[in-house]
């Protein structure tokens, strides 16, 4: 089978990318989804707060997903469910597998990678202690409670203040559990302020910053966990241990982009995001292969995923129609002084759209600082920010007319400048 465009992943990124490619004139599109339904992680995010940017209203996750799924149906975009991609070759031959159709191949002219993330498991956190039942990643717990309708525990401790952990703290309380505390190893929360207020403060759940789990007790089921304060180098401080009785420990300690397929393809990867390096068109270093959404870098709002993926769909359509501008050179975007990374990581002035969004995250909390953009040694932007936090994705907008006056640009630098 030959397809013009194959989108791997039917979550918010894949749906928005496929739709955008169709709007830009690509007829022959296939979305490959491994779950039983489209919509990805949104299906289990039953809380509200999605879509304020995209639809100008506040939706729940399943409602946001359904808006896109309806558009996929209206546009007759093909998709397969219950199907997993096991391999992609450099000449874009995709190996797929499903219980219904067995193992088969599809040859694609262009591919959009939209596989999303998985959660960082206990094994990757090096938490000492026993290994009883009752330890879940927050997203797994969310799936069990919100989709499978099961209750997972009665007395809960949460490690990590990522958004899913905060959302699950509230959810567990509403389901009748006693949530004792959320411990966060860093001196700041990894989640959005509104989630700390509406999920923890509203229900009197304490958030203990600079604290982590140092021991887990219990043979068959978790019986208690020991929490200790950590010092500046994140090492537990002896004497600060406190033991909390509980039957459940939820881990909300970060998301890992699922890039096994990208590695097979020899795509060059960013060590900070663990996603691909992409240019302004969201194209990887392998021609005709694009990436968007959480597989590229972890987003805080789905609205930004949709916006970014729309661009990936547009870029793939230009590539397929042979309209991709081959002129100009890729200028490196250097991130320094508190800016951890940027997407894209290179920019071609002759190929960029009129408005190019550069997304990034900062490494710590800054108050009253500036986000500055330099073209070589010339500062072209100096934007004052009341606050910058690692939990929220930041962006700067570069217009092509701001860059046109410069000749032979060597690099663009984004940095935080404190007052």
């Amino acid at each position, binding site marked *: 089978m030959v397809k013009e465009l194959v989108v791997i992943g039917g979550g918010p990124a894949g749906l928005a990318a496929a739709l955008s490619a169709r709007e830009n004139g690509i007829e022959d599109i296939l979305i490959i989804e491994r779950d039983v339904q489209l919509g990805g992680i949104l299906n289990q995010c039953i809380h509200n707060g999605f879509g304020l940017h995209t639809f100008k209203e506040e939706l729940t996750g399943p409602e946001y997903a359904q808006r896109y799924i309806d558009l996929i149906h209206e546009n007759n975009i093909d998709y397969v469910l219950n199907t997993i991609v096991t391999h992609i070759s450099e000449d874009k031959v995709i190996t797929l597998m499903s219980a219904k159709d067995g193992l088969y191949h599809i040859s694609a002219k262009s591919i959009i990678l939209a596989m999303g993330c998985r959660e960082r498991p206990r094994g990757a956190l090096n938490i000492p202690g026993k290994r009883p039942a009752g330890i879940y990643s927050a997203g797994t717990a969310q799936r069990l409670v919100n989709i*499978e309708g099961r209750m997972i525990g009665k007395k809960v401790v949460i490690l990590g203040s990522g958004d899913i952990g905060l959302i699950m703290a509230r959810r567990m309380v509403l389901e009748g559990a006693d949530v004792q505390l959320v411990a966060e190893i860093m001196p700041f929360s990894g989640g959005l302020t509104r989630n700390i*207020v509406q999920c923890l*403060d*509203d229900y009197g759940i304490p958030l203990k910053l600079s604290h982590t789990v140092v021991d887990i007790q219990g043979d068959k089921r978790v019986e208690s966990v020991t929490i200790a304060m950590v010092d500046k180098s994140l090492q537990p401080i002896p004497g600060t241990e406190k033991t909390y009785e509980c039957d459940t420990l939820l881990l909300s300690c970060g998301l890992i982009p699922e890039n096994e397929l990208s590695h097979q393809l020899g795509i060059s990867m960013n060590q900070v995001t663990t996603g691909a390096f992409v240019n302004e068109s969201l194209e990887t270093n392998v021609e005709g292969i694009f990436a968007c959404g959480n597989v590229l870098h972890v987003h805080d709002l789905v609205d930004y995923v949709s916006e970014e993926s729309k661009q990936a769909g547009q870029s793939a359509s230009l590539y397929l129609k042979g309209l991709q501008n081959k002129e100009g050179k890729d200028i490196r975007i250097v991130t320094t002084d508190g800016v951890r990374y940027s997407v894209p990581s290179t920019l071609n002035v002759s190929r960029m759209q009129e408005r190019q969004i550069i997304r990034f995250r900062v490494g710590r909390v800054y108050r009253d600082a500036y986000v500055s953009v330099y073209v070589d040694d010339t500062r072209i932007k100096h934007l004052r920010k009341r606050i910058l936090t690692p939990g*929220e994705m930041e962006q700067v907008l570069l217009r092509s007319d701001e860059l046109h006056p410069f000749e032979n640009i060597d690099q663009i630098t984004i940095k935080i400048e404190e007052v």
Partner: protein
Amino acid sequence: MEERKITCIGCPIGCLLTVVIEKDEITVTGHTCRIGKEYGVKEVTHPCRIVTSTVKVNQGVEHVVSVKTESDIPKDKIFECIQELKDCVVEAPVSINDIILENVAGTHVNVIATKIIERKEDPHG
């Protein structure tokens, strides 16, 4: 006189508001914009939230359907709302916006479905 500390959720700054309630007068300090001041007043006079949860489904392809209150309800009605939803069972199929429960907890607000749950195919045909 009552004094309350509230974190504003108007934007990522998260100003720490101090709201003082004295007889009929409410004063907000610590805010840096209008949104913060209004939020502070609303939080101590009539705080409201949209409530989301799940409700059991019979004969559905999934066991539960996600639901939300159609608009925000008073914060002190949240647990009553959740309790009423626990006693609620609906029959598949369910569509988005289907009313699951009317006038939840006496708030005059309906609880509606936020997900499509199709009916499980009958094995006996």
